[in-house]
């Protein structure tokens, strides 16, 4: 692992995004290395979620580019972004509520599978084999995130913590290289957060890279290799947690808006 730790996986170059008068992102550049856990923090409204939305092609950027494994990402096509290996979760969980937990994860396999209508109608050998593989992988992932016992329940009937985990399983089903999590610990109690932390560490140990937006500063500082701080859409710091924590600009940004 240490041999590849310095290799750049993703590089954002001068990314900008405006909503009317609001400059949600301004000239944001950051570099994520392979297999690290990279934290993205900042006060509410700093532009963290917007960065995810731009990165995953859900919002169209105004400026800048993102390189992934050295190639310019097609930021206008979300499924293309998923295909090259970026998967995400949402701050306000977005599961397929009326599908089972199992089916949610199976949908995540869509981008790595190929069977078409003809295969489905004739239940060809290849189609049956692929379906079985999708099912197997989905089961594995449900175990992996710890919601296997809820496999046949509708996603919307799962507990909040289980929904967060299920969303991670669905993201992992796309075989991502970069897993981007938007406030995964939001609304979790201490036990659930500890479990989440173990899960994220496990994901990294399995060779993935993690981009983590998180409000829980303790979690971020303990978990991340490096952290970037956004404030009013601009990056004001990027370094190892200890250095970032001591940065006066960061302290000011947090204190200046610590109304919550």
């Amino acid at each position, binding site marked *: 692992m240490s041999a590849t730790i310095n290799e750049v996986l993703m590089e954002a170059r001068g990314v900008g995004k405006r909503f009317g008068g609001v400059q949600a992102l301004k000239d944001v550049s950051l570099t994520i290395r392979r297999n690290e856990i990279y934290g993205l923090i900042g006060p509410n409204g700093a532009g963290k979620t917007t960065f995810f939305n731009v990165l995953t092609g*859900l919002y169209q950027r105004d400026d800048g580019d993102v390189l992934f494994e050295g190639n310019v990402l097609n930021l206008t096509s979300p499924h293309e972004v*998923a295909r090259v290996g970026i998967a995400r979760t949402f701050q306000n969980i*977005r599961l397929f*509520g009326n*599908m089972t937990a199992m089916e949610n994860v199976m949908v995540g396999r869509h981008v790595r599978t190929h069977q078409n209508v003809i295969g489905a*109608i004739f239940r060809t050998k290849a189609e049956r084999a692929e379906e079985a593989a999708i099912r197997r992988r989905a089961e594995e992932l449900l175990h992996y995130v710890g919601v296997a016992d809820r496999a046949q329940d509708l996603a*919307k009937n799962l507990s909040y913590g289980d929904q967060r985990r299920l969303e991670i399983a669905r993201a992992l089903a796309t075989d991502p290289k970069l897993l981007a999590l938007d406030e995964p610990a939001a609304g979790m109690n201490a036990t659930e957060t500890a479990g989440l932390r173990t899960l994220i560490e496990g994901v990294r140990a399995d060779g993935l890279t993690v981009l983590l937006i998180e409000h829980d500063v303790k979690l971020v500082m303990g978990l991340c290799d490096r952290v970037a701080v956004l404030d009013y859409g601009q990056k004001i710091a990027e370094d190892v947690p200890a250095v970032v924590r001591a940065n006066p600009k960061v302290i000011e940004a947090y204190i200046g808006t610590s109304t919550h």
Partner: protein
Amino acid sequence: MANFITSLDKKNKLGLALIAVALIVLPFVLASAGTAWVRILNFAILYVFLALGLNIVVGFAGLLDLGYIAFYAVGAYVYALLASPHFGLHLPFWVIIPIGAAVACVAGMVLGAPTLKLRGDYLAIVTLGFGEIVRVFMNNLSNPINVTNGPKGITLIDSFKIGSFDLGKSDVFGGLIFSGPIKYYYLLLIVLLAVIVINKRLQDSRIGRAWVAIREDEVAAKAAGINTRNIKLLAFAMGASFGGIAGGMFAAIQGFVSPESFVLTESTMILAMVVLGGMGNIWGVIAGALLLSFVPELLRYTVQPVQEALFGHAIIEPEVLRMLIFGIALVLTMRFMPAGLWPEARHRREMEAKREGKK
């Protein structure tokens, strides 16, 4: 299918056998009450095809389509033009039906492509317009070149023939009279079986899951790697193909097509079948289609005589009463069973969970 049958226990096998026997003798039972009833049954099965096709678009993918009848019209006219004296063409049905399906499929994509970004109300309005445009074309494409023969429609359409075996004519086998409608019934039954299997398989496939994912949350579906544009287009294309096939069969059975058969009310009727039966659930949709095709016919045959017996003359026209009952039934269902009479297993499971929670 094979492992489906072996997976059934004895009781289910017996049930299945009984249903099969019932379906086989059904047309003869109905024929004893009048051949008209066999025809009604055949049209009911055509409605089942249409409802199942629309279910792909509306039930699975969640795209509200109010112009679905247009694809039925396309299939019907393709058949009519290629198998009637109108152009003097008499191609065999196994050539025309695939052509009709393909043309309808293309029409589905023509409708789908520009509307992919639309949802809900907006999509409904555009599809409604599309349905009307197709009908208006059929109505007016008689000048300067007479393609569709305008409002007069096309007559003397060929029935399905295999060699000298004509599905449109009566035959006697083993002492039993197989009238045209009865022969068509058996053909429709076979096609129905195929359509059900195809729908079920699509639903349980990678593509079917992608459709439902889009219905549930399009943004999440995109982020999970689904090419929502293509998958939605596929839903339109598949739904349209089913409509086109049904249209071709309709033209052959009816022997006559005109734009009048493809009005907006037909689209809404098919949509009502899907919604009433239970969007997304194949069996519910079938039940909805059968119910809404048969009940009005029953009323047609009972309302007039009952009124005449009671009052000596008819007070309410059967047609008026039909729409009244239809409307009331729909409102009541939506009020008390919003997921339809026979909702998708997902919805049902969820309701059961709720009920257990209350105990």
